Each structure stands twice: as C-alpha cells, then as structure tokens.
C-alpha cells in the first residue's frame, strides 16, 4: 500500500459516482419500496427497502445490475443485550453487585431501521466488481420475510440458518428445517436475549481485584495497576 493509493482513497471520499448510480437505479426501480441508501465512498453501499420490495430488490440486482453472485443472507437483532456488560457473568453480580450500566436504547446502524430484526442480503457483481448490502426491516409483530429461492438457488441454506438462528419465518421456503441445531432445540440462539450460558456459569476471573491493604480504601486498589497501565498505553 503506497502513498499514492492512500491519496486515491482520500480523493474518493468526496464522491462515489458508481455506487450513487447503483443506489439511484434501485430507487428508480423500486419506487415506494425503496427507503434509504447510504454510501461510504470508496468502500461500500447499503440500501434499505421495504419488506414488500425485498424480493423485487433482489431480482432487480440479479437481473438488471448483474449482481448474480449470492454472497450471503443473514439477519441482525438490534435489541441491546439485556445481560448488561457482556464480559460479565451473572455470578459476578452476586459478589460485586450488578453493573448499573443502562441497557440503552435500541439503535440501528447503517441505512437506518425501524424494527428489532433486520434482514441482510449481500449480492455481488462478478463482472463489475461491485457489491451491495440490501437490508429490509422485519416488523416486530410479524416476523416473516419472503424467500429469495426463486432468484438465488443458493439462498436455501442461508435462509434456513436465518430461520433457526433468529426465528424469522421465511415465507415460500419449501424445506424449512434446522440447519445446524439438533431437532427439538428450543430458542433462537442468535437473538440478543438468548443467553450465552458458557459465559454465565463461571465468574469472570478478571473481575477480581487485588485485595486492598487493611488501612487504605478499596478504591485505591482498584485504581492503581489498571489505571497505570492504561496511562501507559494512551
């Protein structure tokens, strides 16, 4: 990576006409179904469509834009983790008291979003070397999305994975069975409110602080080594 190419990316930051054109093509074609697009110039393009336009967007990408290569289909659960700081175990709360960090509002990422679950489709054009991430909100009261099988045969396994990991129903998928999990498994592991038990059965050894001297306060003990090392780093 030489200095020249670094400058190129610097220049590209201002505009990205190729990706803008793609976004515009989507907007023109989908009309009402198109909600939002976001471009990080020189890097990537996100498009958010309505659920009703999900299949149409994929078909448009595949048929008109030549994005016939299916990269992946997945989903995101935007719910902030209800288990607090994730490095901590519930056992730690017994000893140290619960870390009262607020759980926080639900915020969605690039290209926005209104619902808890969001579907993600990534397609790529092998001829043009351009990819796009298409997102679609899945309403909280109706967790379902149409299947993309008729456009991409390879969507089969990806959609099965989404179904079992997030519990989003794939309408029109002929063979909705568990892909990874044993049959009879309860719950959807990739949801944020599904606890990762392995992290919760054992207290985090890192939470134990060095015992203070009898005469000085515990807060001092907390501060010394860690604060010192942090100071070194930053």
């Amino acid at each position, binding site marked *: 990576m030489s200095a020249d190419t670094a400058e190129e990316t610097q220049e590209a930051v201002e505009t990205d006409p190729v990706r803008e054109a793609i976004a515009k093509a989507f907007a023109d074609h989908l009309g009402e179904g198109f909600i939002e697009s976001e471009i990080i110039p020189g890097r990537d393009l996100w498009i958010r469509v309505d659920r009703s336009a999900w299949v149409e967007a994929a078909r448009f990408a595949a048929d008109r834009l030549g994005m016939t290569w299916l990269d992946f289909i997945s989903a995101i659960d935007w719910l902030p983790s209800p288990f607090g700081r994730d490095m901590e175990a519930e056992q730690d709360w017994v000893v140290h008291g619960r870390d009262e960090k607020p759980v926080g509002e639900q915020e969605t990422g690039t290209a926005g979003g209104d619902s808890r679950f969001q579907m993600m489709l990534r397609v790529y054009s092998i001829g043009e070397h351009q990819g796009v991430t298409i997102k679609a909100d899945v309403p909280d009261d109706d967790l379902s999305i149409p299947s993309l099988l008729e456009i991409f045969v390879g969507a089969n396994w990806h959609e099965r994975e989404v179904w079992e990991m997030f519990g989003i129903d794939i309408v029109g998928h002929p063979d909705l069975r568990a*892909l990874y999990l044993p049959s009879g498994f309860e719950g959807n592991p990739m949801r944020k409110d599904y606890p990762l038990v392995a992290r919760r059965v054992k207290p985090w050894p890192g939470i134990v602080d060095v015992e203070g001297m009898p005469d000085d306060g515990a807060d001092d003990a907390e501060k010394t080594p860690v604060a010192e090392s942090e100071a070194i780093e930053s």
Partner: protein
Amino acid sequence: MTTDHITAELDINDNEQLRYIAAQAVDARVNVELETEGMTLNIGPQHPATHGTLRIVAKLDGEQVIKAEPIMGYMHRGYEKLTEVRTYPQVTTLVNRIDWVGSFANEVPFILAAEDLMEVEAPPRAQWIRTALFEMGRIANIMLFLGDMAVQLGGVTAVFYAFRDREFVLNQIESVTGGRFHPNFNRIGGIKDDLPAGWIAETKSVMQKVRDFCDEMEDLVVGNEIFQLRCRGVGVIPAEVGKAYGLSGANLRASGVDWDLRRDGDSRLAWKDLDWKVWTHPDGDSFARYWVRLQETREATYMVEQILDGLPTGPIMAKVPRIIKVPAGESYVQTENPLGVMGYYVISKGELTPFRVKIRTASFSNMSIAPWLLEGVYVPDIATILASLYFILGDIDR
C-alpha cells in the same frame, strides 16, 4: 515470469463428459424399467470421505444416488454468537479456528473490517508481511487438498507427500507467528511482530520445495490416467449455477469465471503490487478444480517470493490505542481465502466487543451446491465431488 513452468496442457474432453451423461441416462432408464427399490445410506458423521463431521444422507438406487442431502452442525461452535462477547483482539484467536488448515487467512478480513471502522491503516511493511503469510496459509491449505483429493480416490501416497512438504510451510509460519495452526498474528493496525532473522532465505527454499511438490503431484496424480478417468466429467458445475449458489474461489474459477478478489477486490494487501496470474479452467469438473488449485499453489509460491524480495522497511504497527474501542458503524470486508471468498460483516456500537459479526465462509456456500451436484452420480463419485469441492468442516459449521 510465471507462465513457462506449466507443463500440463488443457485438453477439454467433451466426449468424456457426454459419454458419462449418456451412461447415466441409460442407467436411469434401466432402473425405471426394473422398478428397483431405493436404499438410504448414511454417510457420516464419522466417515473417511467427509473429513470431519459432515453427514450426508444419500438415497441410493443400487450404486446410483437419487438424492443426497448434507446435514451439518455437528461441529457448530457458534462463533457469530461468541464474537459478541469477545473484545476485538480476542476475536482473532477465535476465528483462527474456522478454517483450521489455512488459519492465517481467517484473521485478515476481520482485522481489515475492524481497521475500516477505526479508520486506521496498517503500515506497508505489515501489509506485505500479512500478504506473505496469507499466501503461505493458502499454500498450506491447498497442499492438503492436493494430497487429500488423491487419497479420496484411493491413491494413498499423495497425502503423505502433502503432509511432508506442508510441514516446511507450517514451520515457516510457526517461526514467525509462534503458532503452527493458529497464528493469531494480526492486530488491528498491523501485525504482532516482525520477521526473525534468516526467515526470508529459508522461506524461499521452502517455496522451491513446494514447487517440487507441485511437480510431483502433477506426475503422480494429475497425469495419472485413472485419476483423470475418475475426475473428468464428474461433478460439472456450469458457471451460472455456481454463481447462484454463491460458489467462490477455485471452485468458480474452475468453471471458467475469471474472478479473484485478490486482483479484483479493493483490498489493501499487497496483491496488487505483485505480478501474478489468475488461473481458470473451462471444464468445471472435478479435474478442473484440482488443476486450478494446483496452479494456484504454484502461483502463490512465486507471489511469496516476490513479496519477500520487495518487502518495504518501516514500522509494523500503526498508532492504535492499547484498549481498542471500535467506533460505531458497519463494515464488510471479504478476501480471497484458500477455500474461497470469506467475509466478515462487522457491526460495532462503539464498545469493546462487536455488536454483531456475520461470518461469510466459503465452504458453506461451496457445499450448498452438493445436493444439486450429487444427484444421479455413483457412490464413488460422492467422494470425488466432495473432495474436489474442498470444504473444511469448521468453515461450513463455523
């Protein structure tokens, strides 16, 4: 510089394919006439052909497969969930274990995605060393394939040669990173350490050994008439079908698709500064996949040599805070890994841990074509096709 070493010629044998298809059609007719009853054969989860714990439920009619369905999950480790409770530096040590035979390559796209979000960039020397180790990971990975494919077809000797010569590559990786299989060498903003003295010269001699190994494989495996008989026309993937299934890497290039993210992607690794060639093969059958991978291994050795010759000097780490908090945002980076395209979709919320990481692995998509491919083939061809698709179980199950 790299084209004159190829001795194998491409003779596309359409007749061979047509004959095979015709023979299958005849068989199918006979079976319909006799109204034979099917048998379900459970191949795996413990079976020599599934190198790992893949299970294939095949409905057979005699020796012919009517329907085959891969069933996985026996090795699902839930990395996407685990990454949500690991800090960014800890994630690399986990994702090492996705494709465990070429694991250096697993770290790179994740680190690149995180670097994208943090808007830091590794110094040139780090990028070049990354590229060298990436390619050595590729060599270590594909060498195993080159031997394993032969052993799946019954030729036991090739795999011993593969392990023998792969050991040299692993030793070189270990003497830099400290880990033979799981280097955990990438850091956000650079790499952990610089090369030890004498490494470059030694690596060059190892690359020569790898090329000798490739020649040996060409003589022992590729040139063998039985091997060609077993592979030509078996498991033909048309390019369009391959794309729709999301196939990538050598599997797609063997169908004639000239696409390699090392050349065509916007990666910041050193590939674009090197002189190399993307190998394709028009046939799309098992033989083509083997052939393309063989050429890629050879090409990779030349790439490593070029990198070692042109290694820039300088630091290996950019300025990065010791405690890494990645700014909020989303980033998707994919690279051309040994098994195919691997990508990490990283969503950060500005905390110590990623909010969500979607891991796009190559073998997952590569295997999803298996039910389509296995339909109508004979039982021995299951082994051929699975071996030629080349999957690593960890890469399917994650």
